[in-house]
């Protein structure tokens, strides 16, 4: 087996607020293979963002380990930490562009902090703007762009350093349906053409259905189900999964047909006794 792009082992994370610790992630383990578009789905507050932020250590795990390309990065600090982050692109729900920088300058920011020369930065940024279809907007300001365009700029920025991994946290949640589709298509193209492994955080099954090949369902900080997307849609195990499917009816029905045709033989790994965990959290 190839070295995993991302491997998370027994990861827990708790936050202490006003002296009281709350456990946001509990014993989370999952493996993302190179080339995967790996979905993490769960409802609001499940801990999805926290999990993604543990991968580039914007958040420090309380327990457990994070491996990136086979390397244990859990305790990275200083130069190593900054280099790790530079190797992992990140895209956010509300774009988080630099309002006081042009589109070009936004895209070349990751190169600027690496002290690349102005000419090299400009060339790389232009190349990326071409990739995301915004070459004509290089000199625009973020405030002059639509949401979808801003997200394309953010995606270009995340790619500046030739990352092998991209973390996408609810990247289409602020966008309308059509724009969502085009952004998801862009991500899929980047995955196929540049071979970038993606961790896609979402609360929408339709997103998982459209671009992911594997998925983990997160419920109240626990992984309650993992597997291939086709399998998950065909035979949802955990209560949380079924609930998410119900909530995103369109995706669910769209997929019944696909799933019926798909082979339900792929390895399933219901974790932590999916039904029980699901039922447990249902009580809340």
């Amino acid at each position, binding site marked *: 087996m190839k070295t995993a792009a991302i491997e998370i082992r027994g990861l827990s994370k708790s936050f202490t607020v006003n002296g009281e610790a709350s456990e946001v992630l509990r014993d989370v383990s999952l493996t993302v293979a190179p080339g995967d578009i790996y979905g993490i789905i769960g409802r609001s507050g499940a801990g999805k963002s926290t999990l993604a932020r543990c991968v*580039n250590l*914007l958040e420090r795990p309380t327990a457990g380990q994070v491996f990136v390309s086979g390397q244990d990065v859990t305790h990275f600090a200083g130069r190593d930490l*900054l*280099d*790790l*982050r*530079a190797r*992992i*692109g*990140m895209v*956010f729900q*509300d774009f*988080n*562009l*630099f*309002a*006081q*920088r042009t589109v070009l300058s936004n895209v070349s*920011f*990751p190169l*600027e*902090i*690496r002290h690349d020369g102005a000419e090299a930065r400009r060339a790389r940024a232009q190349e990326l703007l071409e990739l995301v279809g915004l070459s004509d907007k290089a000199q625009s*300001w*973020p*405030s002059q762009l639509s949401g979808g365009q801003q997200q394309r700029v*953010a995606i270009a*920025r995340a790619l*500046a*350093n030739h990352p092998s991994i991209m*973390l996408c946290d609810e990247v289409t949640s602020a966008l309308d349906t059509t724009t969502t589709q085009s952004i998801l298509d862009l991500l899929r193209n980047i995955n196929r053409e540049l071979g970038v492994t993606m961790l896609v955080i979402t609360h929408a099954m339709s997103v998982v259905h459209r671009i992911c090949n594997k998925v983990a369902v997160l419920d109240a900080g626990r992984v309650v189900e993992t597997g291939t997307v086709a399998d998950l849609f065909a035979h949802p195990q955990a209560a949380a999964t079924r609930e998410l499917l119900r909530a995103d009816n369109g995706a669910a029905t769209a997929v019944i047909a696909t799933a019926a045709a798909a082979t339900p033989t792929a390895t399933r790994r219901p974790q932590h006794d999916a039904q029980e965990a699901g039922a447990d959290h249902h009580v809340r």
Partner: protein
Amino acid sequence: MFADGFGAFLTEFGPLLLEGVWATLAMTLISSALAYLLGIPLGVLLTITAPGGLKPNRTLSATLGWVVNMGRSLPFVILVVVLIPFTRLVVGTTLGVPGAIVPLVIAAIPFVARIIENSLAEVPAGVIEAAQACGANTFQIITKVLLREGLPSIARSVALTVITLFGYSAIAGMVGAGGLGDIAIRYGYNRYQDDVLLAALVIIIVLIQLIQSACNLLVRHIDKRA
């Protein structure tokens, strides 16, 4: 008022008022510039050492906060007096524009530091996080993100600072610095020369309006947010 006509008034008091304008502008602008030079680093320190900041440091944050609050709560007149030995040490005199600049700067630093702190707080947390995710170090985040993204807000504060120091400079004027405020008080209040008082007042109002307008124009030019 203008007893011997406006022309005669100008001949008599024009040079005095003009000198007052220069003294006031020199005092306020030079001390504003120095206050930003020293207040920006202090404001950045307040920002990053605060709980949840880039480099949280409870002790440093509390100490700086206390010093800044002390500086801000001391009435300016008292500050001028208290600082006399220090002022003499730094510029060799307590008189004239140089003598006024020292207390003005000292009074303005904590004021500016708080303004910078507020301006930097306006930079969205998500934007800072995006920079961190790119692998930016703390110094890069300060210079390339916090200060740069906070610039429109910082620029907007310049008018507030200059105008505040404008007011302080009148008090500094009372202790021998000259300037428009000093003229207004010496002639208008002490000698009942209403025309000089009025002229000084009009000039002060016009200058303040000009400063505000120039600042607004600057902000409009540099603010690229919606």
